[in-house]
């Protein structure tokens, strides 16, 4: 099974690896997946006062596709409003990285991670729907 160039590039040179201050009011953290299932993604966004995602960081435990999916979405969400970021679809991620069918769940997880990070941020700003963050 050959992986795409884009996927391998994100795996070998992951973008935006790292962590941000979890407690900070302008940071939203999404932690999704489970170690027992073989993948865990932590995605963090830093949101400006006018609702723009200024920075994003990730850490992922998982296969190459999971690492690449999370790396890709950190690039995609930067500069977007949280509403725009919330519209990123797993199918866009899967298409960009040309994920094989058995790896589609990695893109689903990446979408979930964005949504969880946004929920977490909204919860902090008092603008939340019911938080569904897996880590809480």
């Amino acid at each position, binding site marked *: 099974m050959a992986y795409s160039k884009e996927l391998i590039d994100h*795996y070998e040179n992951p973008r935006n690896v790292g962590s941000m201050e979890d407690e900070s009011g302008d940071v939203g953290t999404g932690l999704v997946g*489970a*170690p027992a299932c*073989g993948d865990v993604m932590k995605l963090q966004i830093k949101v400006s006062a006018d609702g723009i995602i200024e920075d994003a960081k990730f*850490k*992922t435990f998982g296969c190459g596709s999971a690492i690449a999916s999370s790396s890709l979405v950190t690039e995609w969400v930067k500069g977007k409003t949280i509403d725009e970021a919330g519209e990123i679809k797993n199918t866009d991620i899967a298409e960009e990285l040309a994920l094989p069918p058995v790896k589609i769940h990695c893109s689903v997880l990446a979408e979930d991670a964005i949504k969880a990070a946004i929920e977490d941020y909204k919860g902090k700003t008092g603008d939340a729907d019911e938080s569904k963050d897996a880590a809480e």
Partner: protein
Amino acid sequence: MTAKTWTQNDPLYLDYQATTPTDPRVVEAMAPYWTTKFGNPHSRNHHFGWEAEDAVEVARGHVADLIGATPKEVIFTSGATESNNLAIKGAAKFYGDQKNHIITCITEHKCVLETCRSLQQDGFDVTYLHVKENGLIDLDDLKAAITDKTLLVSIMAVNNEIGVIQPLKEIGALCRENKVFFHTDAAQAFGKIPLDVNELNIDMMSISGHKVYGPMGVGAMYVRKKPRVRLVPLIHGGGQERGMRSGTLPTPLVVGLGKAAELAKKEMAAEAERLHDFQHRLYEGLRQRIPEIFLNGDEENRIPGNLNISFAYVEGEGLMMGIKDLAVSSGSACTSASLEPSYVLRALGVEDELAHTSLRLGLGRFTTEDDIEYAIERISKEVNRLRELSPLWDMAKAGIDIKSIKWAEH
């Protein structure tokens, strides 16, 4: 001398439990039997047939010799999967109306487990023994499982994923004492560790060609003559192989297996010593460079060519993508297409999150000292890189118990 550099398209082979390269001496021995000595070993009327038959009998002798059997007790098959099917189904069919209970173990190869499952559908009772944390069966469990209805105990000699050696001698003694047949799947053991069917009281043994530097597509089975084990064949036909396995024998493949057995007999002891040293170096080298790694399966009762290691906090498949210049396996090759962690590791009580971080490293005849150094270097570099990417590693460093978090299992 500079060590060889390996690449994605020319990777270092560290998967000797999946298969082994055919030894060039084996290939050489086989060669004439494709072309000039092409006769059907069952042709009784001319030189070509006799020549092929002679070669088959020499090969049979070598296989028998390696396990302390007589040549008449060895039959050739297509491989260990067929041998396992024949041993278990063949005995079940022959003796099933007298005894209908089979004992095996949950870490057996799929071809034993699935064969047993199929017999359950035919009304047989099967006991699947659990294993201890070190991967070995508990002899008391075996003793307790044997009843007067028990026909057969089928316990593998060496596990294909974790390389542990089951207590064959004790199992054999228990079986003999209780007049129960003892079958062992020795695909990973034949030619790797000393096996003597009389000393170990083995009644049937399955053997594979391609796990022992012989060709793929051939295997053998030892079937004891005294006391005699009788089997109903799976394949009916011309009655070759004492009626237990009809079909024309593939002379070149059989010759190859024979040659492989002959070489193993001569070289096994020295090879085991060398690989034991490599195994030790590899494990210690990795341990020195990477904290929190765990060996799966017993450290002592283990073939020298296998290490199965959990690299905590780094997912195995993700790790393999980073070490594409090493050909290793995560889980067993048969099941690695699925995303489930290995059933063997589960059976040892290895938790799923740790099972997902496991690699099987297989060493063999053509592994060199440089290869070991290279593997240590590459694996440790990549594990440490991926840990920097791992949220679980962060948590571990911060002293957060991963189990204390309520994960959304998906």
